[in-house]
């Protein structure tokens, strides 16, 4: 028993099975990411304040380049196969996988930076001001306010800020990941050592200050629980990252079984690479939208 059209296209549709299959799958992926993008738009439109510049643009740009490069190499690897150049195929495919790993490496570095970066909100305005001065000296309130304005691009919108909402941003002593107020208090800690970020527009290194946990209203690392911005950032990029990982595994499989398939059925092999490539381009395509909406806008 042989299933027809696994290699040759069916004449009336002009497609071989796997190509149709992958496009159907991609259609469902469009709806999957479409659902997530809808969530993004909705949350953003209905929020009063949406932060900007929370993630590093140069890093994001670099990763964009990496993915674009991998898209080029994967299509080149397919073209090489079509031209009958097995070793060129292997080279391009290896490059693609290196790009994929590079992308994931950069991404995990970015994640780590976020997981150890904290915002602290205080009980009330007076307490907050006290800590602002402790962190940035006399002009402390002004400095935090500037950071806040910058974060929410308030110079661009009519929205104003609420002194209660302003937070202090920085790192905890020992650079722990995922600390929360609950965890800290249940660890019988009463104060934390908090190193605030540099004031807006400078590269100063403010000294660590001591913050009483009883003054703190909320403390959160840059994790999904921090805000809907980070929630959507992590969800979409993590899901995208999983796609990159999955794609890389499949492509690596093609690479390592290349000799075997080349002997067995070069035409089918080219088909498989084409199909894998289609998936890979799709992953790139999602990133093309992700990059501006998450890093830039």
């Amino acid at each position, binding site marked *: 028993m042989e299933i027809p059209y696994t290699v040759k*296209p069916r*004449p*009336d*549709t*002009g*497609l071989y099975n796997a190509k*149709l299959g992958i*496009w*159907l799958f991609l*259609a469902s992926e*469009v*709806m999957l990411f*479409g*659902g997530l*993008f*809808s969530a993004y*738009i*909705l949350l953003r*439109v*209905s929020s*009063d304040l949406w932060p900007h510049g929370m993630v590093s*643009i140069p890093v994001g*740009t670099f990763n*964009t*380049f990496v993915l*674009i*490069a991998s*898209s*080029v190499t994967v*299509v*080149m690897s397919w*073209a090489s196969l*079509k*031209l009958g150049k097995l070793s060129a195929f292997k080279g391009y495919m290896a490059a693609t996988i290196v790009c994929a790993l590079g992308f994931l490496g950069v991404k995990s570095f970015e994640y780590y930076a976020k997981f150890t970066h904290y915002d602290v909100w205080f009980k009330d305005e007076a307490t907050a001001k006290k800590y602002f001065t402790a962190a940035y000296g006399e002009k402390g309130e002004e400095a935090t306010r500037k950071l806040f304005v910058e974060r929410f*691009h308030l110079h*661009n*919108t009519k929205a104003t800020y609420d002194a209660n909402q302003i937070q202090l941003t920085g790192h905890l002593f020992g650079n722990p990941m995922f600390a929360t107020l609950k965890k800290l208090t249940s660890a019988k800690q009463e104060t934390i050592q908090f190193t605030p970020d540099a004031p807006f527009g400078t590269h100063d290194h403010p000294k660590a200050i001591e913050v009483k946990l009883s003054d703190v209203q909320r403390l959160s690392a840059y994790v999904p629980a921090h805000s809907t911005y980070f929630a959507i950032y992590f969800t979409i990029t993590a899901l995208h990252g999983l796609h990159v990982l999955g794609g890389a595994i499949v492509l690596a499989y093609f690479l390592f079984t290349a000799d075997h398939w080349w002997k067995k059925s070069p035409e089918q092999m080219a088909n498989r690479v084409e199909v894998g*490539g*289609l998936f890979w*381009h*799709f992953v*790139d*395509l999602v990133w*093309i*939208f992700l*990059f*501006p*909406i998450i890093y*830039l*806008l």
Partner: protein
Amino acid sequence: MSHDHSHSHGPGEACDHGHDDHNSPEYIHKTIRKYLKVGGILFAGTILTVAMYYVHIPSVAATIAIALLIATVKAAFVAGVFMHLSDERKMIYSILLCTVCFLISLMGLTLWAMNDFPFFTLVDGKPF
């Protein structure tokens, strides 16, 4: 849903020519040049978007519109050239057309529904 009634191609005719064309080394070499060009365009597009961010266009709406426009153009190149969509079968077009319709209705109607409340639903920004 999608279906084409055309059965103009009998088994093993017409389409196979097309197929052979697409497999000829000259054709592949031509496409390779195209791929590299598109790669260049994608790099350029990215740089453009990022540059725009640093330029600080005063209108938020304009920034969003331009960034999304560039992204769409880039996406169109990836889909059209890398994914061979510019030269694909009718069947795939019809599938994608359905998908896009539903995607638009998902986003559009949801947004519309969330913005069509007949009243102010918040009192002083707070629900009480």
